[in-house]
């Protein structure tokens, strides 16, 4: 079970600034482990951030995003207390979603 997504969503002057950190190994498939074997590819492929039914941000990614992907973005139209939901899926079909309140 993957670790929870860390979400920080701060509303100021109508703009919600969001920073998300998604714990994930983001293996490129090119790294060797201690025994010299190649660690298989394993990375987040898709991210979706929603406010209710509204998608406020999305990403499709390859293994070329650093381990524990950190993404910052900004959007308008939110109210304090609304819940932001972040969901990722990965190359093995695993998934994780977490929510946080906009403060």
């Amino acid at each position, binding site marked *: 079970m993957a670790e929870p997504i860390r979400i920080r969503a701060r509303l100021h002057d109508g*703009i919600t600034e969001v920073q998300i950190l998604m714990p994930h190994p983001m293996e*490129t498939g*090119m*790294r*060797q482990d201690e025994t010299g074997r190649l660690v298989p590819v394993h990375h987040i492929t898709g991210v979706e951030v929603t406010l209710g039914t*509204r*998608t*406020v*941000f*999305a*990403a*499709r*990614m*390859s*293994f*070329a*995003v*650093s*381990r524990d*992907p*950190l*993404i*910052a*973005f*900004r*959007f*308008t*139209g939110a109210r304090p207390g609304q819940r932001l939901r972040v969901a990722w899926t990965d190359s093995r079909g695993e998934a994780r979603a977490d929510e946080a309140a906009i403060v």
Partner: protein
Amino acid sequence: MPALTSIRRRRMLQVAGALTAAPWPAAQAARAQDEALAFAAGNFADAISALGGAPQPSTDITLQLPEVADNGAVVPVSVSSRLPGTREILIVVDGNPQPLAVRFSIPDGTEPFVATRIRMAGSGTVYAAVRTDDGLFAVARRAEVSVGGCG
């Protein structure tokens, strides 16, 4: 290396110029199918081709990238676009085994800005591309990488 990249880029822009006299409907329709191809592309020219052809240079895109990255596994990058109708921000790393690193969707109401951290296999040029209703635009910056970040 930089000379080869710019020669290749100029040639691609010449070809793209000849082919893109018509508007983009074909490229838009094929975009969904091309996504898998774009991510799988193993070299810069193929990735750009899968994205619909060479982007036009733009001074309305700001790409922040360190000039020197000690650790190629964690290279901070941010992109901001002043182009009207920005729908998508893409990061393409010339020199990575799969150059298309990530593509971000910018829905209405979301600012055309993103910051993240990418892997660079070695020193090379990072392209920030922006897709708008008018097509694909890009700006590029080079980073020197001390220790490669893909393996």
